[in-house]
Every structure is written in structure tokens, then in C-alpha cells.
């Protein structure tokens, strides 16, 4: 029970510290937030001089900043507004950041969850098979292939796929998340086109990801097969299928949990480049447009949401871990 309280506390602290971090980043803009805002407004809007009072109201509206107040009060406003879901106004798009996020988030989540599930699914199965056929040509060859695939960055794979498959062979769509002109509905064509557009981005994440998982799984499984209780189980007449799944498979997957958590953060981060290559309208893509347009409120908002999503996923994984592995003991030894 105490473990759960500690983990939730930790997650809250992480999210808060990230919000504060963005607050500091915004304040450390070259030349301060105010004249940055003025420059932005001048550039996008009517180009007329903006009075100080008007600027202050805009600052509050766009970036939850309350210039002129003492630093701590500003921080308080900044954080409380975020917690109430008001992530400020995007300058570039002129609409509240939160609405952009609501529009973009499902796409990114769809892309990432499928990639993570596929990467781990393929990785675990391949790793287990490699362990069972340890030393055979299949094992050595797939180890080399996994090592090679694992050393290809996902965006390089993405570029290659786009170049070869969608342009040269023009088989799969090069960009976008759904064929233009189709309105959102659960009709077969709409969903079919979503899948068709999603194949390449997911493939580039999965192809370069499963290698690492397979190697990790293989290492654990080989160690597990050497354990004595496997031999005892075999002697007890337990079917080798059950041994493969319930003994070797189950116990070899557990150490992959930390790798699973790290890869959640990695994949969310990776979506930025991936969505740009495929012009896929997800959170990453909007983050990138925000960056190129120096649209700070949008950037900060999306960054915080991405972090929050990652933190929640990891918290969930952490809590379910103790259910799966009864040996989990979180004691820390006495100090020396």
C-alpha cells in the first residue's frame, strides 16, 4: 500500500516540476517574454503598435503570465491555470492550445499504442523462439538482424519507406492521416483509409524497435531456461508448452518492464520527427509547427501534455508490475 502512495506522489511531483520547468524556460526567452510577445503580435496581427495595457491582458490570455506581479505569484497563477486545463492561447493558430491538443492527441495515441504493442509483441515472441533455438543458425542470424535493425534510427527507416514504398512504388500514402474528403464516421472506408495511412509510420517504429526487445527477451529466457526449477518441472511431467509459457515466458518478460517504461517515453518523444515526415496531424506535428513558428504557448502546452501522458503510462505500468511479480520488495537497505 505504501508503495502505491509513494509512486502516485512521485508522478504528481514530476508533472508539477515539468510545469515549473516550462515556466522557467518561457521566462528565460532571449530578451524576456514581453517583447517576444510584442514581436510576435506585430508580425502576425495588424502590425500596429500595441499598448502596454493591451499587451498585459494578451499575455495573461495567451501565456497565463501576469507580468508585474512578484515571481511567486506569477508562478502560482501559471501553475493553477495549467491545472484547470487552460493551457494558454496558440499565437500561430489563434485558438486555445487545449482545443488543438484535444484534436491531435487521439491520432498520436493511436499511432503509439499500436506501435508499442506490436514492437513488444513481436520482440517477446521472437526473443523466446531465439532462446529455445539457442545456438542454431536461426538464433545467430536473427540476433545479427535484430542488432542491425536496432541500430537503424526510426526516422531513417521512415525516410527509406517513404522514398521506396510510397514514392517509387507508390503503394501506400506518403502523408496525412486519412484520405482528404472523407468525413469522420465509422464507415469501413474511413477506417480503412486511416489504417492505410498509418501503416508506414507504425512500421518504421516497429521495425527499428523490436530488435532491442528481442535481444533483451532472448537473454532473459536463456538465463531462465538454465534454472533448476525448469528441470524439476520437466521431471514432474509438466507439458513443455506450459513450461515455455508459464515458466520461461512469464519470468523472462518481467525484467522487460523497465525497458517497456523507458520505451514509452522514447516513443512519445519520437513522434515529433515521425509525424513531421508523414505530415501526420498528431501532437508531435503540432509541437513542431509551434517550434518553427516560435509559438511558445503551443510548445509548452503540448510538452506538458506529452509528459503527463508518459508519466501516467509509467505509473500504470509500475503499479501493475507488483501484481505480476510477487517477489517485488521495495525495501531499501539500512544506510552505511
Amino acid at each position, binding site marked *: 500500500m505504501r508503495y502505491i502512495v509513494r509512486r502516485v506522489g512521485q508522478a504528481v511531483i514530476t508533472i508539477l516540476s515539468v510545469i515549473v520547468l516550462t515556466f522557467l524556460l518561457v521566462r528565460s526567452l532571449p530578451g524576456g517574454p514581453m517583447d517576444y510577445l510584442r514581436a510576435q503580435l506585430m508580425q502576425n496581427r495588424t502590425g500596429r503598435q500595441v499598448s502596454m495595457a493591451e499587451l498585459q491582458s494578451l499575455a495573461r490570455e495567451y501565456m497565463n503570465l501576469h507580468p508585474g506581479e512578484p515571481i511567486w505569484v506569477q508562478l502560482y497563477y501559471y501553475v493553477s491555470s495549467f491545472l484547470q486545463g487552460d493551457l494558454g492561447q496558440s499565437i500561430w493558430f489563434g485558438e486555445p492550445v487545449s482545443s488543438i491538443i484535444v484534436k491531435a492527441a487521439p491520432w498520436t495515441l493511436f499511432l503509439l499504442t499500436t506501435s508499442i504493442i506490436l514492437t513488444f509483441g513481436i520482440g517477446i515472441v521472437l526473443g523466446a523462439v531465439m532462446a529455445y533455438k539457442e545456438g542454431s543458425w536461426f538464433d545467430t542470424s536473427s540476433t545479427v538482424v535484430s542488432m542491425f535493425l536496432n541500430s537503424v534510427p526510426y526516422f531513417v527507416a521512415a525516410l527509406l519507406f517513404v522514398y521506396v514504398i510510397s514514392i517509387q512504388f507508390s503503394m501506400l500514402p506518403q502523408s496525412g492521416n486519412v484520405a482528404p474528403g472523407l468525413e469522420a464516421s465509422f464507415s469501413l472506408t474511413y477506417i480503412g483509409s486511416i489504417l492505410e495511412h498509418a501503416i508506414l509510420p507504425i512500421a518504421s517504429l516497429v521495425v527499428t524497435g523490436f530488435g532491442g526487445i528481442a535481444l533483451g527477451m532472448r537473454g532473459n529466457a536463456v538465463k531462465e531456461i538454465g*534454472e533448476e*526449477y525448469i528441470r524439476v518441472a520437466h*521431471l*514432474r*511431467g*509438466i507439458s513443455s508448452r506450459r513450461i515455455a509459457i*508459464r515458466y520461461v515466458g512469464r519470468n523472462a518478460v518481467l525484467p522487460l518492464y523497465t525497458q517497456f517504461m523507458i520505451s514509452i517515453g522514447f516513443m512519445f518523444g519520437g513522434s515529433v520527427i515521425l509525424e513531421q515526415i508523414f505530415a501526420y496531424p498528431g501532437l508531435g506535428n503540432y509541437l513542431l509547427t509551434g517550434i518553427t513558428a516560435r509559438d511558445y504557448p503551443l510548445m509548452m502546452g503540448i510538452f506538458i501534455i506529452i509528459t503527463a501522458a508518459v508519466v501516467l503510462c509509467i505509473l500504470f505500468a509500475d503499479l501493475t508490475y507488483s501484481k505480476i*511479480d*510477487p*517477489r517485488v520488495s521495495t525495501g531499501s537497505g539500512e544506510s552505511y
Partner: protein
Amino acid sequence: MQAETKHKFDVDDPIFEVRNASVTFDMERGESKVMDSIDIDVDRGEILGVVGESGSGKSMFASALLDAVPKPGVLSGEIQYYPEDGEPVDLLDQSESEIKEIRWEEISMVFQGAMSSFNPTMTIGDHFEETLQAHGRDISEGMEYADELLSELYLEADQVLGSYPHELSGGMKQRALLALSLLLEPEVLVMDEPTAALDLLMQRSIIELIRDIGEERDLTIVFITHDLPLVANLADRIGVLYAFEFVEVGPAYDILTDSKHPYTRALLNSTPNLDTPREEMRPIEGKSPDPVNVPAGCSYHPRCPLSDENCVQNDPPFQSDDGDTDHQAKCHYIEQTRREIPLNLQEVEYSE
């Protein structure tokens, strides 16, 4: 292969008949014989103690009895198993499914490391149910029998069955493993150093439990250990293993008071014991043999005080100088051993 009529060491109703069983491993340093053509019989219902130092091939002997020699070891020779009802069966040429029927239903095994014999992510109860299921037994009836077994071993059944392996103490795990091995009411129980990792008091208590269960269920028990005194008053007969073969086999009482092989005597003299005076305790010099190049002739000659040309040349067969065939040793000079190597047990005057 004509089954030899005369059973070894006057065993009249053998449950096991082992004929030149050997296990060979081919390591880069050459082919190593970890079990060197062993001939022995195990009587039905007896407790046979098998004693040998670490590295003498005793664990291999245990695995051979279940035809479960770990890869890349190769088991050769012939092990006849005589079930209570039904005709004898040679374990070595059983198909995978046939051997599966025999393992745990007829012959089951208790391993040394109870710690690592249970799957850490499964409760003890799961192990029991899983075994019953694998052998097509009725679960509820089986679990009732398991409760009975566990309480007979001084364990609260539901508390043990519900907990995970890491939640039990060493002694409890060992007894749970013992109960698991008796779950399908086997006829033979092979135990490889079952109590080595436990406290002395727990060891002795478990030995007593094994003795009672053995008698009650008319079990044949093959008890393997490096600790001679531990098995001294449990076993009916004792076989001493040295350099991957039996060098002396006989009734426990004769082995203890009047052993015929110099190695057994050295083993007895080197075991700390309450009664024997401390001055006579002497360790065994030299190193245990290497399986790749087992010395020619008698394998003990490098460490034996009586060894001479004859020992170095030819390997002595099993013999006994006083004619009783149930107590024999592989040594050319048995009467000399008895005369010249004193057993410090003999001089002790009984204190109480």
C-alpha cells in the same frame, strides 16, 4: 543382453537393477566419464544411503535413476526397474511419453536446492495442482491428499499452499518439496542431498520424518549425501562412491564399524563427531579425481596409504575377504586395510 541372475550384494527382491551404467560428457579437455559403469541393485522397501564427496558423480547417479541426465551428458548401460505389479522395464529405452508415466508416478525425486526447485512467480499450491493435472489425476482428491501429507510434515496446509516460495523458510520449503514428490504416491523416492542447506536440528528432524514416511508407505528411498554420519543411522545399506564408481557397498552397521575400503575408513576418521576423541581426527590428503583422466588401476591409489604396484596397475574387482557377499569393496588388500587403518570409533569407550 541376458539379465544376470545373481543379484548384486544378495538383494533378493530388487526394485532397481543397474548394470554398467555410465554417463559421459565430452568437454573440450576430452571425454569425461562422470559415472563409470556402475553395477548395483536396490532392494524394494529399503533405504539405500549413497555417500560421496562433492565431485564424485553422486548427483549424476540420482539423475540416471530417472533417466534425466542433463544435456550434453549421454547415459549408457541398463537400468531395470521392477514395479510392484507389472513386468520389469528398462528405463533407458523408454519413449518420452512412457518415461513421463514413470517419472513422479513411480519414481520421484527431491532436489538439494529447495530454494530453486519452485517457480518464484507461482504459489506452492499452483505447483501441486499443476502436477496433478499433468498426470490426469483428480484435483480435489489430490489436494486433500496433499493436505494430509503437509500436516504429516508439521506444516499448516492452507498457509503453505497459499504462499509464494520466497515467503517460506528453508526448512518449510524442503518439506513442501518432499510433499510434492510424494503427491502421486511413487514407489521410489530419490533424494539428492535434500537437507544439505538446512540447520542441523532441522536436518535431523526431516530425516526422522523421512524414516517414518518410508516405513508407513513402504517406500524405497535412495538417499544421496556427502555427509556420512547423517545417513549412518537412517540407511539400511550404504554405497560409497569414489571417482565416479562404487568402491564399497554393504549393510550400514558393517560399513560403520568394520569398513573394508581405505577411502571409507578415511571418510569415517575425518568426520567431526561428538563421541570420538578429537585428536584422532585426520583430514583426507590430496585432491578429488578429475573425470577426464581417472587414474588407471584402483582410482584411490594416489591418496591411499596402502597403495602399491598392484593397485596402480589393475583395477580391483568387488570382493570381500570374509566371504559374506552382502558387504564387498573394490580393494586388493581388504584384511590389511582392516588391520592397518584404525577406525578411531573402535577405541572410544562409550561415555554414558
